[in-house]
């Protein structure tokens, strides 16, 4: 068993693109759920809105990549308005129902065969991010090493941009939440009636939080597809939303850095377990295959089972997350 290899992989993941994308989407969810108490179970829908806003602009309208970024952000805002306007006046669980339904409907819609010219239907969209990689200061295929970390030039460029965006987003959220706007938002979360009695328009605060979180998720979606180099409808499946939830609750909702910490813990754990199982000597590996038919083929199914179980247990026994504080706990009744 090659422990060095396993740890190298795990460490490289810690700053890898998955962490950036999921942490950024979780920062968005943190604004919505952690600070405003909104049950958004369609975060992947916002990621798809961002990704397709970018992709459709380049692929169908044949406009430039940079205009596409603007459209990606616009699409996320429009989606937030569409979902928020009818539901945010109602009890919290209605938003959950509508968002979970909408995110799956978006996936069906973009892979509809009549949308082929616009979204590429089930084939998706490719080659839309050349303008982004032309700016890269790194050699495309060159491998860069920093101590135990090593990345290809192309990935390093996405990573660099991704981390800058992520840290800026965290900084923005931190500043906002200590501003009067953020305090009003938290008061809406804690006691909507009291906030309303003080003249705060709870509805608009919640709508703004949904929009801000949606935009951050939209940017995360764009980052993801730019790194992949293609946009596929089926990558935006609901498990992504639930993974983001697991990450946020792992880190602790309502805390500034919790999305990053949660994403790092989650992805390191996943990569460690996967590589550990792949590297198992033949004896134990055969044993697992014989008894529970576990092999490299279905290991990812096991991963999603663990996400589900983790979410269940965290919500039950530690709703404030591993590092969260009881005071900022958003999983409370209102």
């Amino acid at each position, binding site marked *: 068993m090659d422990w060095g290899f396993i740890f190298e992989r795990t460490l490289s993941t810690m700053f890898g693109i998955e962490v950036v994308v999921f942490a950024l989407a979780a920062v968005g969810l943190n604004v919505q759920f952690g600070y405003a108490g909104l*049950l958004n*179970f369609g975060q992947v829908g916002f990621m798809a809105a961002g990704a397709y806003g970018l992709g459709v602009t380049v692929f169908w309208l044949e406009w430039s990549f940079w205009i596409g970024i603007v459209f990606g952000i616009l699409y996320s805002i429009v989606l937030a308005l*569409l979902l928020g306007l*009818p*539901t945010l*006046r*109602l*009890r*919290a*669980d*209605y938003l*959950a*129902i*509508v968002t*979970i*339904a*909408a995110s*799956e*409907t978006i996936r*069906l*819609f973009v892979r*509809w*065969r*009549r949308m082929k010219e616009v979204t590429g239907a089930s084939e998706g969209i490719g080659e839309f991010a050349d303008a982004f990689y032309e700016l890269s200061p790194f050699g495309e295929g060159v491998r860069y090493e920093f101590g135990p970390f090593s990345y290809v030039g192309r990935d390093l460029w996405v990573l660099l941009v991704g981390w800058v965006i992520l840290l800026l987003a965290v900084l923005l959220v931190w500043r906002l939440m200590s501003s009067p706007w953020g305090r009003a938002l938290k008061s809406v979360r804690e006691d909507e009636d009291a906030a309303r009695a003080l003249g705060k328009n709870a509805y608009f605060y919640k709508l703004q939080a949904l929009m801000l979180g949606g935009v951050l998720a939209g940017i995360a979606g764009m980052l993801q597809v730019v790194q992949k180099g293609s946009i596929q409808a089926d990558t935006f499946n*609901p*498990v992504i939303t*639930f993974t983001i*939830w*697991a990450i946020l*609750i792992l880190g602790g909702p309502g805390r500034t850095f919790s999305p990053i910490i949660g994403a790092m813990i989650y992805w390191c754990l996943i990569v460690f377990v996967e590589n550990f199982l792949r590297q198992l000597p033949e004896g134990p590996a055969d044993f697992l295959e014989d008894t529970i038919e576990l092999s490299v083929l*279905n290991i990812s*199914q*096991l991963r*999603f*089972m663990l*996400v*589900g*179980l*983790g*979410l*269940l*247990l*965290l*919500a*039950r026994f530690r*709703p404030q997350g591993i590092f969260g504080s009881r005071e900022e706990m*958003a*999983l*409370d*009744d*209102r």
Partner: protein
Amino acid sequence: MTTTDHPRGRMQPSRRQRIIRLLVVLAGSLLVPGLLASSAHAQEDEPEIFGSLNYEDSESGEDVPVVGVAIDVEGVGTVETDDNGDFRVVVPEPGDYVVTLVVESLPEGVNLRNPDNNPLLTTVSENRDRRVLFPLVLGEEGEGGGSTSGGITGRRVAQLTVEGLKQGLYLAMAAIGLSLIFGTTGLVNFAHAELVTFGMIITYGFNFYGFAGMIGFLAPLPGPFGDGVNLIPAALFGMIAGGVIGYVLNRVIFRPARSAGVSLIAQLVMTIGLSIFLRYLMLYLFGGGPRTFGDYSAQRAWSLGPIELTPKDLVAMGLSVVILVGVASYLELTRMGKAMRAVADNRELAESTGIDVERVITFVWVSGASLAALSGVFFGLDQVKWDFGFRILLLVFAAVTLGGLGTAYGALVGALVVGLAINLSTLFIDAEVKNMVALLILVVTLLFRPQGILGKAERIG
């Protein structure tokens, strides 16, 4: 089409038929065994995978065989359909096989009705031949009947109305539990749709491996334990298993959470976690491909006036009507039913009149889960798939929201409206995106009547 039951495995036919007859009576008298055509041929030696390809000529209404299409069984070989459109592949041993229709070999203009079902994963059990279905259509491909190109005819409206009614009835059985659990506990159970999938998959397991055969070392037992049983007893046991799961979920997870004072929002997140866990557990155990039950899978539709319906759908629809009427009379007439409605109406008030609320909640979980499991069996008559529940989650939520979250009759009304609306919408839009109509219903309901059709107009903000 044969109308007899065939011996399967080691079980004595007479005994088995006696059990079936007993269960038929229990199930509610609507089942006439002759209605239900079994598809298997008794076979002594090596089992076969077989089927026939044809499409309906829209003008004459006749079935036209499709000749010379390549069918590939992975690891066994490829055959072509003969002059009658039939094909047969002898497989070496019972087990799982992947059957692929080579789309390129289809004649011009003929397409698969449901391209998602190709390739098809099929299970061949001992001593039985296995029929596989590849429904074909003339014209554009698409889910369940193609696109809107057919135009609006009276015949089509009638057919879609029946399809909608069918889907609505099955949906109602799944939705009632969700609505009652919300009514009595305030919990929105996102894992409820997984109980639908659980019902169809556990029934599939009973159907092919018997009541204990799914547990590896018990497989050598004789039928009905280690060897497959007919779908009807399998479905009954599937329903019971669904009730057991409902009991366990409430007893092990949600009742302790309630008494520990875990907030409703946290419980909602718990149901989401539970739903992912169950869904991927079922994928792990069942595999990703769509499958069909071992009985009644290949039936020719009957023409009843302008509509076409397979006998199994007719029976299942009749049964679901009986069951829904039964649920309604249970809620109206029995003590427990009244207690359920009382708790759903006002928990504190019900408690103060001496109703044991926890006992009522247990009843709601058990009955809701077994109804969901049975609806899974009915849905599974077309196709058994690991993520089926999630696919209809949107429809179930649209149904209960439209009808009024927390009301049993609301769920029924909402489900029928959603089923009809979705199916009739294919007159105007592609079947591929018909579920979007459910989202539209959901959003419009929340905009204009958020308490639903039958909900009370109280402030729910």
